[in-house]
């Protein structure tokens, strides 16, 4: 009798370990995948910026500094590509800030705003900015779920087995990025 009871408990335990382990692995892969989604959007942004710079360069002779800041921030961000979450977050934060400033400055050039090409590029870039923000939001949510799971009892007992490590969140540290003025890039006149 005792042996059977022991066996049953053992089977339940093994089943639990397997489920908990698999759950953690699934969460880990989700976290990695969510990070890749950010990467895709960051690459898209890096690819779009030279187009934007070339398009506006001619009309924005007086804003060399703003343009240069964007170009510099882009190369820094691209260099930090292979680094950890923190480095990437910092470099990309700088780029977001520089781009935000450029968009504000562009508002002052009516002929730029009326150009179809610029409007298309602006929509593309602001959409990419949004995609980065939403991908970051998803990554932070998924990573938080993963972190919570591996710290909670009793799942934390198999965390070592699943080689689970705390995933770093993408936090907005740069004060400049937080303070980016919200630019309404919608192309419509305000309506009631």
């Amino acid at each position, binding site marked *: 009798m005792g042996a059977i009871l022991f066996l049953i408990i053992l089977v339940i335990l093994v089943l639990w370990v397997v489920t908990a382990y698999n759950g953690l692995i699934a969460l880990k892969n989700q976290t990695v995948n*969510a990070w890749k*989604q950010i990467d895709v*959007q960051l690459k898209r942004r890096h690819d779009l910026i030279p187009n934007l710079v070339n398009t506006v360069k001619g009309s924005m002779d007086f804003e060399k500094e703003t343009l240069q800041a964007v170009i510099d921030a882009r190369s820094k961000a691209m260099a930090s590509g292979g680094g950890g979450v923190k480095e990437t977050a910092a470099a990309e934060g700088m780029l977001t800030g520089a781009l935000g400033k450029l968009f504000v400055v562009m508002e002052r050039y009516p002929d730029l705003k009326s150009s179809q090409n610029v*409007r*298309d590029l602006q*929509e*593309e870039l*602001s*959409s990419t900015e*949004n*995609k980065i923000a*939403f*991908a970051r*939001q*998803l990554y932070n*949510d*998924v990573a*938080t*779920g993963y972190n*919570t799971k591996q710290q909670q009892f009793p799942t934390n007992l198999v965390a070592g087995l699943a080689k689970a490590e705390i995933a770093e969140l993408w936090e907005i540290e740069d004060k400049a990025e937080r303070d980016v003025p919200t630019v*309404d*890039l*919608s*192309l*419509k006149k*305000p*309506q009631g």
Partner: protein
Amino acid sequence: MTAGINLFEQQAKNRRLTVAWLALFILFFAWLGFGGDLALYLEAASRTEGQVAYRFPWIGIVVTTIAAITAWVSWRKGPQQVLWSTGARELTNPETVEEKQLVNVVEEMAIAAGLPKPKVYVIDDQDPNAFATGRDASTACIAVTTGLLAVVNREELQAVVAHEMGHVRNLDVRLMTLIASLVGVIVVLSNGMGRMLRGSGGLLGGRGRKGGGGLAVAALIVFVLWVITLILAPIISRIMAMAVSRDREYLADATGAELTRNPAALASALEKIETHEAPTTHIKEGAAHLCIADPLGRDVNLKEGRLADLLATHPPMAMRITRLKGMAFQQLKAAGQLPPT
């Protein structure tokens, strides 16, 4: 994350309801068919004093088979049917800035929800509205009217698409599209059978003979029940569809707000949809409960109370807007950015 638990509960509930609807649908037609057979059999038996040979229930088998096939077709083709009936065209090559913006916004919301990008459709209709359809996230389609594109700004468009993405993520699309096509089939078939019945001049009428007694009464009861189901089915199925739809609108509003973290934008989008209401020419009654706002502009959707609750496809707009503004208020409060009062 509490949101995650709610999500799985909601998906499970929608899966259960989908199966229940399919089962009810087939049972309903089985009753229509076999009930008819039973009435005929009892009637024949009453005339011959029980001396009737076994009658093959061909009506029942034919009707049930047709129902099963229609259910299967609705399941497979429901999304295309809905899109086709509204005259939606797929946006494969966005040309104007508005169209590009729409495609971008859908991509953004797909990323926020962590789902594959749904197909984007546009309906040439002045009434601002939007709906989502599909069997699951990978076959999902989001359609918006040109009227919507004309009145909302980018943030509000994003909020509307987020609401639709919420329907996709919660698996509402599957249930609601299925219900849309099943209710359509019930209405059409019930009407058709009712007409056939009237055409045949009544099965039992004028045949009141003596003899058979109890059997004749049984035949009459079955027959009366059968006719009552035929008459009530379209009404009851619509009321059930509306109840399912109303529930899910609040939830999709909440999911949409969770995706954009911007409930205020959805509130102002709903306000605009309400004020810019124009008669819809493309969205028919069958697809009404899929839409973000009732395209038929029925007054019941504005009221509260028992009767309105029963007949409206959507919760009262004012209630939805109030709830969203409440969420926006909570958000500001949490961020410590409340304006001084």
